[in-house]
């Protein structure tokens, strides 16, 4: 029974992270048709910026959260405005390479330049309290992990509501569906896309901040975020509603394989699932087949 508790708590943590990072992939892909490979580096950057804020001003973690989200939003907006409009009309692999270069080289390099590659321990260095909450079935979650899980559900519902009920959300849907038609109808599609990038980056950076406080802060965060690709694909790259289920499947399978079979096998599971879904249902469990054939 101890194993089951360990697997479930590790899984819950992974589900929250894959869900929050994967949500960013989906929001950006839905809006602008770009797979953002720089998203993992944004996730890591959130941790580093939060760390710098807390260290410099001595503010509590809770106070740093909105600031990190704000900075994240600004960075996402700037990134879109600076790079993406120039790439309009280029083949679809150009944004892939540009975001790869920005994420794996420029952002990762800047992080190393400013903060050195050494691993940092938030809780030890800055002294935050992170008490363990014990749930039934011997699931142990730290406060932050629980907050991340709740955050995933809240953010997902907010985004769904945004798409359904607000003017800007409907504009986002329209721009994603057909950006020519949308711009004919007077929607400023670059503003809409920039907003999508901004929301996605803010979520990723906030999640990265919380995760690095909970675990540790170094560049392994970039790799963690790559494993959110499978979660987004299993749910459906264009289906925001399917994301939580995708994250649940991928995160829990990884955690169970890690605990019950072998930690190294656990690392493989997300990518094996990604291949499986690509071979069988490339549009994901909740997507529509047209989506996969569009690009």
């Amino acid at each position, binding site marked *: 029974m101890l194993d089951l508790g360990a697997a479930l708590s590790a899984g819950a943590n992974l589900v929250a992270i894959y869900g929050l990072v994967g949500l960013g992939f989906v929001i950006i892909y839905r809006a602008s048709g770009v797979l953002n490979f720089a998203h993992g580096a944004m996730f890591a950057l959130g941790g580093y910026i939060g760390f710098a804020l807390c260290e410099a001003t001595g503010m509590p973690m809770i106070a740093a959260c909105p600031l990190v989200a704000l900075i994240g939003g600004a960075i996402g907006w700037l990134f879109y405005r600076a790079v993406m409009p120039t790439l309009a009309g280029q083949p679809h*692999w150009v944004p892939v390479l540009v975001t790869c270069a920005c994420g794996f*080289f*420029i952002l990762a*390099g800047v992080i*190393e330049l400013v903060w050195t590659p050494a691993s940092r321990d938030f809780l030890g260095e800055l002294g935050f309290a992170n008490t363990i909450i014990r749930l039934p079935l011997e699931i142990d979650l730290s406060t932050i992990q629980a907050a991340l899980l709740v955050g995933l559900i809240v953010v997902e519902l907010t985004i769904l509501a945004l798409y359904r009920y607000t003017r800007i959300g409907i504009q986002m849907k329209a721009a994603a569906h057909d950006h020519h038609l949308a711009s004919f109808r007077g929607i400023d599609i670059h503003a809409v896309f920039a907003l999508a990038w901004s929301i996605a980056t803010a979520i990723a950076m906030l999640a990265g901040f919380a995760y690095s406080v909970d675990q540790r802060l170094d560049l392994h965060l970039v790799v963690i975020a790559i494993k959110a690709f499978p979660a987004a694909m299993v749910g459906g790259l264009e289906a925001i509603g399917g994301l939580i289920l995708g994250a649940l499947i991928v995160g829990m399978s990884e955690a169970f394989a890690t605990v019950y079979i072998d930690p190294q096998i656990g690392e493989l599971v997300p990518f*094996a699932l990604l291949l499986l879904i690509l071979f069988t249902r490339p549009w994901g469990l909740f997507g529509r087949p047209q989506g996969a054939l569009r690009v």
Partner: protein
Amino acid sequence: MIPVGLDGYRQDYRLLSSVRQGVAIVLIAAVVAWLPGVVSAQTLEILNRAAIAAIGAIGLNLLTGTCGLISIGHAGFLALGGMVAAILSQFPWLPFPAILACSAIAGGVVGIGVGLPALRLRGLYLVLSTLAFYYLFLYGVRVWQSHLSSVVALTGLSLPAPDLGIVQITSGRAWFYLLGAALAGVSLISLNLLRSRTGRAWLAIRDHELVAASMGIHAPYFKLVAFTISSAIAGFAGALLAYYNGTFSADFYTIELSIIYFAMIIIGGLGSIFGAILGALFVTAIPPLITAAVTTVGVPSAWQVAYVIPMEVVLYGLLIVLVLLFWPGGLIALWRRAHESLRTWPLGRAL
């Protein structure tokens, strides 16, 4: 832009477009063969690494530049070639060329498997499937390596110097001629492919798959051929790389290495063999040039690790982004423009 007119298929079939081009190639080959005598050992090292990179980049360029299939799993095939070479080099009775051939064959066979999703997936979905294959394979290699022995798990397998029977390849100079010959061979094979039915089919699939299919081109077959040949060349390059490094370790083949190879063909020029060679030379030469610049300026050695290496990484990224944003076509386009304005001087448009 002055159209490049072909007066018939015969011109398309020819290996060289003019006698002048043939003379130019012979001259370039002569200069290259004379290089090891004059350049320093460090420069020779850069040239050797660039030659290996060029072979790998040509392989990727056939797949991405010519056939339009994107793969960011290229480092996985390099690792596969290196792994096969590292295992087979433990048997001293196996000749070096046979080991290289085995690496290439292994690359080709695995390439068929990795290419299978390409029959169904397009664009970004294909990128993700190559990414998944890359991670699966590299994790597999890492597990395999960690089970060998504790020393091997840390430092990797070591490979002996290649033995060609008559000569042992140990000096930088010997390596230079070996790699030069290999690069020339791979370039010739690729050129021949490009001017054959296969190459034309790839171009047609890249430009418009539906039209290609309606012209009677069996797209799935040619896509698989592209994957097979590209990964066979990558396996070959990976074996050479492992021999050149003298060791094989899974940690060397990062996802960044894949992106660097992609950057080579973008910076050099998509779809061109000469472009892939130029791009490989350019990208390989950047880090040593930065290091040389830093040494000339005189930076404290403590800064070397903390600032110079991350700066190199940032510069790489900036270069890729800037080329993509402002310089589509890469180095080869620049070369062609310069050539064209020279040919039409003084009436042609300026650069």
